[in-house]
């Protein structure tokens, strides 16, 4: 079982009526090195050593996990949306997608995925961008950018280091004329994604607090993070 400080985090009655929480388990074989619950709306980080695999479980279903990866030994090299898209020839992230760095190097490879596709063009929410998207009345709401800044500060990083990101379990289609946006999710309770570190990587995650669009089904819920030893 994962470690969790506050038992109410895994109590369905803490969330919207009808919430189902499915803890699932690792998506790949291997000894468990770390197993933690990220409470709703909170940031999280860990180093995943080369060859090891991080499984992220969408415990409550359709909960966006915003994510940036860094070379753990040189954080000037970090996840790059365009290098991942250009390198893979596709805007969506699926099993086999190589998550590339700003230098074009593989940071990680998606080794298993239980939704049709994952997003990497939708970026992160934030206090300031929320004012553009939903109005100035949202300015007091916490966002993923704030989670990233808080977590990055633990590693001596700041605003310069918070770049465009991955969104595990978020659904962002692009229509033929270029219209794009966040729509109802295609994940569900207990669905998972897993990626293998291709170098030692620092993983930053924001368990998205957004309440103004369907990226969290208007019901932020926990994520489970499981690191397993590579074979």
């Amino acid at each position: 079982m994962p470690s969790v400080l506050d038992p109410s985090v895994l109590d369905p009655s803490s969330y919207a009526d009808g919430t189902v929480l499915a803890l699932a388990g690792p998506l790949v074989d291997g000894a468990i090195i770390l197993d933690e619950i990220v409470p709703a709306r909170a940031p999280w980080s860990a180093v995943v050593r080369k060859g090891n695999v991080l499984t992220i479980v969408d415990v409550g279903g359709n909960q966006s996990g915003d994510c940036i990866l860094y070379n753990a030994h040189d954080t000037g090299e970090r996840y790059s949306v365009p290098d991942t898209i250009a390198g893979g020839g596709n805007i969506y992230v699926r099993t086999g997608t190589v998550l590339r760095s700003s230098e074009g190097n593989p940071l990680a490879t998606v080794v298993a995925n239980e939704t049709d596709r994952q997003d990497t063009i939708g970026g992160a929410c934030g206090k300031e961008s929320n004012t553009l998207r939903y109005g100035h009345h949202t300015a007091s709401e916490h966002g993923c950018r704030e989670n990233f800044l808080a977590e990055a500060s633990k590693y001596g990083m700041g605003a310069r280091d918070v770049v465009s990101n991955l969104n595990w379990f978020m659904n962002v289609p692009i229509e033929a004329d270029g219209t794009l946006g966040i729509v109802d999710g295609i994940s569900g309770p207990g669905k998972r994604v897993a990626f293998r570190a291709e170098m030692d990587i620092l993983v930053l995650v924001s368990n998205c607090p957004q309440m103004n669009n369907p990226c969290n089904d208007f019901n932020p819920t926990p994520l489970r993070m499981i690191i397993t030893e590579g074979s």
Partner: protein
Amino acid sequence: MATEADLHETGTVLAARADARAQGAKLADAMPYLPASSTPFPPPGADPGTLTWAETVAGGNYAHKVVARGTLIRLEDVTGEACAHVLVYNALEPWERLNVADTVKIPWQAYLTTGHPLLSGDGRVLATIVEDTSGHHDALCGTSTAVANQARYGDSAPQGPSPSGRELFTLAAAKHGLSRRDLPPSISFFKGVRAAEDGSLAWTGGAGPGAAIELLAELPLIVLIANVAHPVDPRPAYISGPLRVHAWRSAPTTPEDKRWDATPEAARYYLNTADYAVARGI
């Protein structure tokens, strides 16, 4: 056969000085024109006396400038083979910079053309695309890296035949005190990419010689431009033609402009930007 050295008399300091000074009036196909008003290629619609930047950037090279709020920046694809990779920063607080995700998400539109904002991650618009005769641009694929260009062309160095965009951006950024930590994903003009329903990328190429775009600086900006082959250009050769850059004094977007409140999101990004400018006294 005469070598380059044979063409110069540089045996003494006085001779070397004379030799150096004799070179100053030479012209090159790619060069800056100073003062900007002396440009041999004055852009349509601009009073030459208001020009603040005039330059032809060679294929495989880069340019950079700090420009005032309200500057219009015109980029022209002279031969149809340029690809202008662009990064912009708030010159007053350069940790505020282009955010490609917000640039496509907040207008609900992935493909750049007239009216599209270049947004920062701070809820403000750094620049607006106010003119576009190309329609072939890209906000998805970024620029090229050393790793990619070495694999594709055998070389990526700035001094080599097929420089990568990221290595040129590194140089341009360093000249403004910025490092590779300050190089987020960039956008590119004059070479297009579209995404199919399954997410796969389709190359749409360019619009031919003479296509141009104009960017209006909504804040004081550091502008970095790398003119290099697009990272998913399918042609086996590294093809990169000259890019012409002109900039001149104009005015930032105001409530009198139609685009100020063309959409609910536009109304708020222009308002947030004006709010910042007023508070800064600019």
